[in-house]
């Protein structure tokens, strides 16, 4: 086992391979507060990549309702159980064991799903925690809560799937950090299905090999964001790159959101894989639950999110979500607009902080008709 640096845990950890950073790392930010679980991302992904024979239960992208939902069923609860109770120390240093450090006698500690785990993609959907009492009404505080969690492969810096593959059929691309299963090399041992704590590698019973999210790499290679990102109705997603070897750049929306402001947090960082999908935690959910899910910085992130309107630099980064299919490499917070640029510095998107309002007369003289009050 090699020692590698995991910045999400603020410490070194064990990993079967030496640390090797890609030139740039594919990164996503998902704002859970904006997700309405319309599953447009799920459908976009499924029809693009996983619509074939044998892929019936394969969802590279899924949206589940927390606390009860999950696909495969109870994936997170079961992985947490495997690790048992662990602890975060002072200063955000993880004191517990990661999936690579547990003493299970396996290279990677993981939970193996059952056949039925894949039978209910929508289980728990829109279920809230507990029942409303008779006569209860909304009084400004959510006693009963739920939220939607959109999930894809995290293209981890230290992938559990890659670590567990005895054939080295899984690799992390040097150019963008996308994690792929070599479809011609895999022999279907299903070690990755057990090892991935997020359960985002799937076994195809027809081809008898495993498959996973490919980060829409054919789009990435053309400078475009993945299908699940560009199809998002709620504009909750943004995809780009981070280079964590370098000092954070203030003109990178990802460095700003993830590294400088730390408003978006990794999902279950305690697993130790250093996932690269970052979530803005839901503001209305009890802190204990969120800390277990997103680590110890949850409260600061929520405070920041609630006050984002006063932080133009941060607000501008969030304005870029869902407004261009192109990959944004840098951005600028102008007086009235957030402006996004591509890799060579060309402007590719310009979003006003406030949508312009046009007041038009009720009577349209040109078409001799009354206008309706619809936008």
């Amino acid at each position, binding site marked *: 086992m090699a020692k590698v640096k995991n910045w999400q845990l603020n410490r070194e950890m064990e990993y079967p391979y030496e640390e090797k950073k890609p030139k740039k790392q594919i990164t996503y930010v998902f704002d859970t507060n904006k997700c309405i679980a319309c599953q447009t991302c799920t459908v976009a992904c499924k029809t693009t990549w996983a619509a074939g024979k044998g892929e019936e239960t394969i969802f590279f992208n899924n949206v589940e309702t927390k606390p009860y939902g999950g696909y495969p069923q109870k994936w997170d609860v079961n992985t947490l159980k495997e690790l048992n109770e662990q602890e975060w120390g002072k200063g955000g240093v993880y004191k517990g064991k990661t999936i690579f450090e547990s003493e299970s006698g396996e290279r990677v500690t993981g939970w193996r799903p059952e*056949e039925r785990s894949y039978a209910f993609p929508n289980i728990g959907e829109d279920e809230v925690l507990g029942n409303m009492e008779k006569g209860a009404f909304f009084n400004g505080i959510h006693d009963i809560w739920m939220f939607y969690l959109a999930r894809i492969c995290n293209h981890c810096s230290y992938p559990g799937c890659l670590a567990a593959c005895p054939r080295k059929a899984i690799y992390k691309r040097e150019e963008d950090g996308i994690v792929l299963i070599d479809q011609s090399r895999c022999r279907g041992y299903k070690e990755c299905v057990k090892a991935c704590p997020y359960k985002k590698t799937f076994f195809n019973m027809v081809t008898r090999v495993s498959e996973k999210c490919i980060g829409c790499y054919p789009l990435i290679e053309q400078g475009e964001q993945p299908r699940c990102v560009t199809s998002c109705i709620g504009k909750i997603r943004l995809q780009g790159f981070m280079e964590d070897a370098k000092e954070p750049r203030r003109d990178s929306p990802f460095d700003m959101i993830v590294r400088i402001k730390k408003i978006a947090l990794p999902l279950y960082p305690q697993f130790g894989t250093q996932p690269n999908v970052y979530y803005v935690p839901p503001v209305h959910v009890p802190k204990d639950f969120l800390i277990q899910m997103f680590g110890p910085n949850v409260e600061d992130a929520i405070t920041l999110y609630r006050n984002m309107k006063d932080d133009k630099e941060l607000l501008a980064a969030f304005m870029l979500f869902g407004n261009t299919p192109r990959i944004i490499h840098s951005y600028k917070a102008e007086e009235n607009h957030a402006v996004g640029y591509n890799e060579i510095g060309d402007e590719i998107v310009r979003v006003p902080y406030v949508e312009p309002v046009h007041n038009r007369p009720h009577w349209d003289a040109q078409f001799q008709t009354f206008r309706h009050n619809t936008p």
Partner: protein
Amino acid sequence: MKRILLISFCISTMCLQNSFAQQIAAGEKIYKANCSACHSIGKGKIVGPDLINVTTRRPTQWLNKFIRSSQALVKSGDPVAVKLFNEHNKIPMPDQTLTDVQLKDILAYIKSKSAPIAPAKTTPKPTEANTSTKPSVKTNTNSPTAAKEKIDWVDAEFALKSYPAKQKINAKELNADFWSTIEALKLPVSPQQATYPTLKNPSVEQLTIKSVYLPKEVAFRIEWNDSSKNNEVDVVKFCDQFAVQFPISLNDIPSYMMGNKGGMVHIVHWKAIWQEDCEKGFQDVQVKYPNMWVDVYPGLESYLDRSKRIYAQDIGAELIVETHATGNMPGTYSNNPMSVIKRKEPVEEAVAEGFGTLATQETQQAKAWAEWKEGKWTLCIVVPVNTGNHYKASFTDRTKVAFALWDGGFQNIGGRKHFVPWIDLLLQK
């Protein structure tokens, strides 16, 4: 007087040399049986470190302790042991119960192999190496291998006698009369624990094996107890499997754990899911889940016919392959040998040169058939040999053979397997 002294000195040196050669030969035997699966001498790391010059790198006392129980040394906090353990993915070296003499022999052997040019006199000849009570194998001097007389042949613990077949061998005739006349060998099997992923708990203890041969084929009939027949494909289901392994070259016997770099092995691998495919057709989704419903498989819309009640779920993988519409079947599209829909034989021929290097061979000639009845698998595998293909085993009257066995009911897969290290395969006249 001087002359006498000189003579006696010569004699004593000769005696010393002779005993040293014996020591090396004995060491080689133990080394090959216990160490060679994980260590090489001068050929790089396999599972554990390369042992070249290890006798000069570390003190003998330390080596003895480490060989007997590396974990005891690691737990005692010995810095070198801890470092080695960490550097080698924390795979513990199994404890070796060896006598002081045996330890000395092994170290002598490693030392002899580490020397830049081994003195010719100390290189053990095959007959010298044979210190066991078993009769030595006489090589046929008229055979083509006669030129390779230098082969370091060391008898394995077990020897399987293969008898000349009197007729063509049909794998499907598992209970053909001639099999009852063939001598059976019982072999103990062990769980694989040399590399990750390991098999923690073995579920099979032994197998019974018989063998016959033809000029270009060796057939094995294997029986083992397995309480459950596991031949289904699913994310959590694992199938029963069996594999036969041959060294490709006898000049330098490769590691019995799937060979090593430069030491290639020829593997013939049978799987119960393939057996099911061959017996009953491909285990398609709608076969396994008859009540499934699918709206559409993109690109296959033209095959739907509502008037004939043909819906998406009725479209089989075979049709998709026939019509080359495999764009949504990535494994099949990439010609992955695991993703073959129309399988002719329940067996695959492969080559390997170390863990994780298994690759399907281009020419598939092996045949097999199996039957599970009352808690027992009976399997016949026919292996092509001496075909001229240099990825396949070739030998004349003797070779090594190893076996692997997977119990699907106990989630055996990949490295999670039972194995039998090299045994001798002796072709009888």
